[in-house]
């Protein structure tokens, strides 16, 4: 369980998070919002990469601020898949396994799923954006931890891979994991998420199921519901 | 039968002739002999006799030698018990050889010496070891003698209550050779002494000078070593001196020099090595001195020219890695610094004749700064200092414009040491 209490964060004069309260039990939660609304900042706060100005974050009733070992439970897929450029995919895999202290983990299944075996001995700098993203996904899924944070997981993926990713997320969800996803692809979000958290100007504007969102905005489709929220607030 | 007589006669003749002309006899001194003191032996001896002093310690002082005698020691030591002088020679043709002489008295009025030679000639002082001394060997108005292979070990801590190892006063034509002197005031000191030859001596850890000349002319210093002295060699008010093939090393301190020249004229300083001295050569009021084929290696200041120096020649020397090669006061005064090797030279030699195509300026601006603000020495070899030195080199403001080596040698000069 992740519990976030009145989280505030500003960069200089730019207030990014203005009192975020959030409680997540389990399932796939999609964090949505316009660009710059604070989605990534929220993710990074949970990961401890960004320090909130005030507020608290706890996982399984333990505050995680200024701690590091709780990240053992989290798999993170960063928004931009940039890796050290002069090592090969295999070396990267080995390194991450080594650093996580989890050397026995078997990544073969994912390598086959995303057809990565022919890239294993290529340098990361030689890979295309999509392939890099596949490696990124592979690195996130192979460890099988109870919490996953996926920041724009669909970037650069071909339709086949996108489908595979969807299946994977649903499979992991069914294991009882907490999965936080941010994405701009509404189809994708709709297909996987149990709950939507909509962030607007640093605050949680809406939290609930897609059905509830449609009801609230009087729109037929999810996509239109989101558009409606944005229009109301920016028009 | 007749031949026998002849033989006997001849024998008599030889014996007689010997005793008549005072044929030298040998007198032995030892603790079990009939003669047990050196003084006693001298009393009984006649001119030309040899006194052999056997092993043992003899507590004697003021031993006056007023006849031409040869004193040989066979492992004997003479202990003066700090009561004053020990050997005093007042006769020609005296030899003192092989004694260990200890405990010379210290006085603030009289210069007590282990061996004093007064107004004598043809003396020889050899193979003695002198410890715990005030003055070691003191030659006074004496000439044509030799001081050789003596070892003098002092314990001097400052200049005021210490004496000199070997001192010459109005003594000409003396050879001082292969002696070792340490920890006295001046290792060797010559005053008003001319035509002396100083060779193969080692003089180190002396509180003032390794070798000191005052008002002495025509002396030669050769193959000596001067290490860790206040100054290696100080020459003052002297002329026509020659110094070659000496080593001056690690003479350290705020007033420490390898060679200190003060009012010295017409002198040659060639083929010497100056290594790691605070100042290798300090020159003041000296004219027509030539410095050829010397090595200046790793000194603080290689040459410090304090002004009033005219017509000096500094050629064919190696200046290698000194903190400062040259400090100079006043105008050029016909001094010549051409044809040296300077490790700081950065010019080029396009025609490969071994002579740099660009003249070298051996003076750094920083040496002036250090002279004015001594603390700034701590900035030595800082990049900032290098930059201001460089700018001074490009357009000299402080250093004499014409003080340059016009023909700097680009390679370390190999001197002909076996010339």
């Amino acid at each position: 369980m992740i519990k976030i209490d009145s989280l505030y964060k500003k960069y200089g004069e730019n207030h990014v998070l203005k009192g975020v309260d959030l409680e997540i039990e389990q399932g796939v939660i999609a964090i949505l919002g316009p660009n710059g609304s604070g989605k990534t900042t929220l993710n990074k706060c949970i990961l401890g990469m960004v320090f909130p100005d005030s507020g608290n974050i706890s996982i399984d009733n333990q505050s995680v601020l200024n701690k590091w070992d709780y990240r053992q439970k989290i798999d993170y897929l960063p928004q931009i898949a940039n890796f050290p450029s002069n090592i090969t995919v295999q070396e990267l895999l080995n390194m991450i396994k080594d650093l996580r202290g989890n050397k026995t983990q078997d990544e073969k299944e994912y390598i086959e799923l995303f057809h990565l075996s022919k890239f294993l001995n290529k340098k990361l700098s030689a890979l295309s954006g999509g392939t890099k993203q596949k490696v990124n996904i592979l690195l996130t899924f192979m460890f099988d931890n109870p919490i996953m944070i996926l920041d724009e997981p669909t970037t650069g993926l071909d339709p086949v891979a996108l489908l595979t990713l969807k299946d994977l997320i649903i499979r992991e969800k069914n294991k009882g994991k907490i999965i936080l996803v941010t994405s701009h692809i509404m189809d994708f979000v709709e297909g996987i998420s149990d709950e939507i958290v909509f962030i607007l100007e640093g605050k949680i504007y809406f939290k609930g199921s897609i059905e509830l969102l449609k009801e609230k905005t009087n729109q037929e489709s999810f996509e239109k519901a989101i558009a409606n929220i944005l229009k109301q607030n920016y028009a | 039968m007749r031949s026998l007589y002849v033989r006997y006669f001849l024998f008599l003749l030889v014996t007689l002739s010997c005793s008549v002309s005072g044929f030298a006899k040998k007198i032995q001194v030892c603790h079990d002999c009939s003669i047990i003191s050196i003084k006693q032996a001298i009393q009984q001896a006649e001119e030309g006799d040899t006194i052999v002093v056997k092993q043992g310690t003899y507590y004697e002082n003021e031993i006056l030698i007023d006849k031409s005698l040869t004193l040989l020691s066979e492992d004997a030591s003479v202990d003066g018990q700090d009561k004053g002088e020990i050997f005093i020679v007042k006769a020609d043709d005296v030899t003192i050889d092989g004694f260990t002489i200890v405990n010379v008295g210290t006085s603030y009025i009289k210069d007590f010496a282990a061996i004093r030679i007064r107004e004598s000639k043809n003396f020889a002082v050899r193979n003695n070891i002198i410890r715990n001394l005030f003055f070691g060997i003191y030659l006074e108005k004496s000439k044509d003698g030799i001081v050789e292979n003596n070892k003098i070990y002092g314990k001097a801590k400052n200049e005021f209550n210490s004496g000199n190892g070997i001192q010459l006063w109005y003594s000409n034509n003396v050879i001082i050779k292969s002696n070792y002197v340490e920890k006295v005031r001046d290792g060797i000191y010559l005053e008003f002494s001319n035509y002396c030859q100083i060779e193969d001596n080692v003089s180190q850890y002396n509180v003032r000078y390794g070798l000191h000349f005052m008002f002495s002319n025509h002396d030669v210093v050769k193959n000596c070593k001067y290490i860790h002295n206040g100054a290696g060699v100080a020459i003052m008010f002297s002329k026509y001196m020659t110094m070659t093939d000496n080593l001056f090393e690690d003479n350290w301190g705020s007033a420490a020099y390898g060679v200190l020249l003060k009012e010295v004229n017409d002198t040659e300083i060639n083929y010497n090595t100056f290594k790691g001295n605070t100042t290798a050569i300090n020159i003041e009021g000296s004219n027509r001195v030539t410095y050829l084929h010397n090595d200046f290696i790793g000194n603080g200041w290689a040459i410090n020219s304090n002004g009033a120096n005219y017509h000096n020649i500094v050629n064919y020397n190696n200046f290698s890695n000194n903190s400062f090669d040259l400090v100079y006061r006043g105008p050029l005064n016909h001094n010549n610094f051409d044809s040296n090797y300077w490790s700081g030279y950065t010019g080029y030699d396009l025609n490969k004749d071994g002579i740099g195509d660009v003249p070298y300026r051996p003076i750094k601006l920083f040496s002036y700064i250090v002279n004015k603000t001594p603390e700034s020495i701590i900035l030595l070899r800082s990049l900032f200092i290098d930059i201001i030195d460089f700018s001074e080199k490009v357009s000299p403001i402080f250093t004499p414009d014409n003080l340059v080596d016009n023909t700097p040698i680009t390679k370390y000069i190999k001197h002909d040491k076996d010339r």
Partner: protein
Amino acid sequence: MLKILKYSFYDLIRSRWSYIYLLFYLLLGIVLLFLNSDIGKAIITLMNVIIVLVPLISTIFGVMYYYDSREFTELLLALPLKRSTIFFGQYLGVALSLSMSLIIGLGIPFLFYGLLASGVIINFLLLIVTGVFLTFIFSAFSYCIGLKNENKIKGFGYSILLWLFLAIIYDGVLLTVLIVFGEYPLENITLIGTILNPIDLSRILILLRLDISALLGYTGAVFKSFFGNGVGSIISFFILLLWVVFPLFLLRKFAKRKDF
């Protein structure tokens, strides 16, 4: 931390810049020794190089690696690793690979030249040790600069400024102070001023061996007791060690509060 160090180090020794750095020192060593008959002169030139270039290269290289490895750093930050572990590991990787280039690059030509027999080995070792100290100090500073500046250009700017200040401007200011206040006793100020700059301190450490005869020409009592015996060298080394610790302390502090 050892794991991070290992990966950073592997990463670095495979990067082109390490080789350029190594090659630079190799060339320098060869040129100094074989085109120059005078080993004493080579040592002095080397000293200038170490005092001036090692800090410059260390800061520039450190900042460059910091910015270059940002993605890697972010990857690491999401892993169950302590922050100080990550940054100290990377810092050590940089400092060690730079030090290795220095030691190998200069060591090989000197070994071939017959350093072991030449009697200047102590001077050479002193130069190398000082160079390694400076590498550690300045790459730590560069990491601090990187952590404090998101903007690459600014980061590079500050690194060069830091070097410019400590290598040149500082001494200019110190000299000006000495000349202007020449009538006052300045020994202590001079010594303290020197200690407060790691480049000056390293320079003094080397001067104590190469130019001791000149340093002893100064009459002041404080200098004399500082330079005159082994105390000066021991104190200098100790303070140099503090100079390594200080930026690491800053590095830890900055790393702890930094948002990514």
